[in-house]
């Protein structure tokens, strides 16, 4: 794993899985068993922002008032991905944890998850391309195959779906196309 340059910690913008767990943002195992895609919402502050709640067709995302952070009702979520496309902070990933075993059915991919990430950079990855995946601190977790690329005109944010081992499904937060790796000294 590459080293992190700069200050570590949530004060400097780096959220950890522990932070997410504490806020109830990681789906419990029985919810994962349902086999649907689920949003991982890295929005841990009370900020005046409501698009994820407003766009949710089932009311699974709620807020006390417009200035409070989102709360998720796992049982009501259908994994439609609209919240991830609408979130102005690009803070929501969609994780389909059992995608390999239940949907993909490709030999050797039984323990793979499909993670969909909002993406607003160039170039846009292509389906089948191998991209680099990163965690919340920018550490490279490895490489992954792009399984899906989706952009709805309504939201204008590209969702890049990558196949990653379940072990890092909740850690993946960024993707980057390999040919564009910037030279960093």
């Amino acid at each position: 794993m590459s080293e992190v340059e700069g200050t570590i910690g949530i004060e400097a913008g780096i959220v950890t899985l522990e932070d997410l767990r504490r806020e109830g943002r990681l789906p419990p195992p029985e919810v994962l068993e349902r086999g649907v895609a689920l949003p991982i919402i890295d929005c841990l502050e009370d900020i005046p922002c409501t698009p994820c709640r407003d766009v949710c067709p089932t009311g699974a995302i709620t807020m006390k008032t417009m200035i409070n952070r989102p709360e998720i009702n796992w049982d009501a979520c259908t994994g439609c991905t609209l919240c991830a496309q609408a979130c102005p902070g690009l803070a929501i990933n969609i994780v389909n944890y059992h995608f390999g075993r239940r949907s993909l059915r490709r030999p050797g991919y039984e323990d793979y998850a499909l993670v969909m990430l909002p993406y607003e950079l160039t170039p846009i990855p292509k389906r089948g391309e191998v991209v680099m995946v990163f965690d919340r601190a920018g550490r490279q977790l490895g490489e992954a195959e792009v399984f899906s690329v989706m952009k709805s005109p309504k939201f204008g944010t590209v969702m890049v779906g990558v196949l990653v081992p379940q072990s890092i499904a909740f850690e993946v937060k960024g993707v980057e196309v390999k040919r564009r790796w910037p030279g960093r000294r």
Partner: protein
Amino acid sequence: MGESMQDRRIWEHPVLSWDRGTPLSISYDGRSVTAYPNETVAAALYAAGVLAFTRSSYLHRPRGPFCMIGKCSQCMMRVDGVPHVRTCILPVEDGMVIESEDPHDSEYPTPARELRVERQELSYDLAIIGAGPAGLSAALAAAPSGMRIAVLDQSPYPGGQLVKQTHKFFGTKESFAGTRGVDIARNLISMLREYPNVELHTTTQVIGYYPPEGVLIAARAEGVGRYKLMYIRAGRYLVATGAMERTLAFPGNDLPGVMGAGAAQTLMNVFGIKPADDVLIIGAGNVGVIVAYQARQAGINVRAVIDILPKTAAYLVHAAKIRRLRIPIFLEHTIKGAYGDGAVESAVIYQVDRSFRPIEGTEKELKVDGVWMAVGLSPSVELLSKMGARIKFVPELGGYVPYRTKYMETSVRGVYVAGDASGIEEASTAMMEGKIAGLSAAISAGRGTDAMAEERRKAIEWLDLFRESPDYRRIKEGVSKVLIQEAA
């Protein structure tokens, strides 16, 4: 320094595209420079690699643009023989002759060419100064009343800072949440153009206000050295002049390449020009981290974002967006200096202790050709002050701000304020304040309707709730210090 001919224009971007049209040619100190019709002179020169625009008065040090929105004076050049022209707000014309000037030597105020000034007497029901989020929203809110409205802005394009924002906005439906700033500007402008009773004057700079008659004088530039002097008498005035970026004191802070984050945004996002290839950003608040992200979108390498405080003041989600892209944030760090021969070539940062004193031995040198300042803004209240509005220094609001009622009327009857000029906050609240001020101007003129009063009540309620949010409570506190209680 080497001002080699180059093209710093961006041709690939994930969010923005620039309709550049057919290139034209301008001359800069005797050489030919390619420009595009929608560019300003400063933008075109920057695209060609010109970094030093003028010189300081006493030490004759090279200076480059700091604000790119017509507020600083570091982009002044001689254009077609006219000295001291703000090139950042001057649209290019084919064949223009640009010369760098040393203000110390120039024969100001006698231009080499005759100025043509035409005087115009105008009257409106409402004159709005500033076509940013606050001014546009105010005009839009007041427009249905049928009032005759003029919106004046010194920039060649309306939209203020909205047009530079590639990210979707926070907030709620009422504040266009989920829409990118650049798209909000486009929507507001196109809605406004539906109203025949609203005039939008760009490249129009307000240069004075003369009590007691209350005449506002604005100079509308119609090419170099050609002005229309507008003598405006309006029933009501609404000042939405925005803010000015602050700078920091450090060795080399005047080197070309050191600029406000907003100036970098103007170049990158309005004109599609790379201000630098490698940058250091000072200030890890919302502006700093958002600009860092925009820089990456523009293909610029952000070497570091630094902040002297132990915690970023930015929204966590904005800061998180750059950390996962491996853009480092160094907290408790500040800049020691920027260095280079004629322009920035490197910068040194170091760590500070709890009393903000530099810690020896922590220096880091960064090879950068840009240093962008995101260290806060000061409200632009000069005009309000001139108009007689009572002003007070309120740290929570970013500096000197006017007293105002909850309807955004200042201490001068019939003069309203909205947006950053009333206190540094953000575009969403600027739009809401603009709406409140615009509606109030109409209502107080007896041109309001019950629906408008209801709309205003809702907007005030929205703003109130928004400011209950932890990041905005200090704004609420600041506003309470300059709130004029309405007489019953």
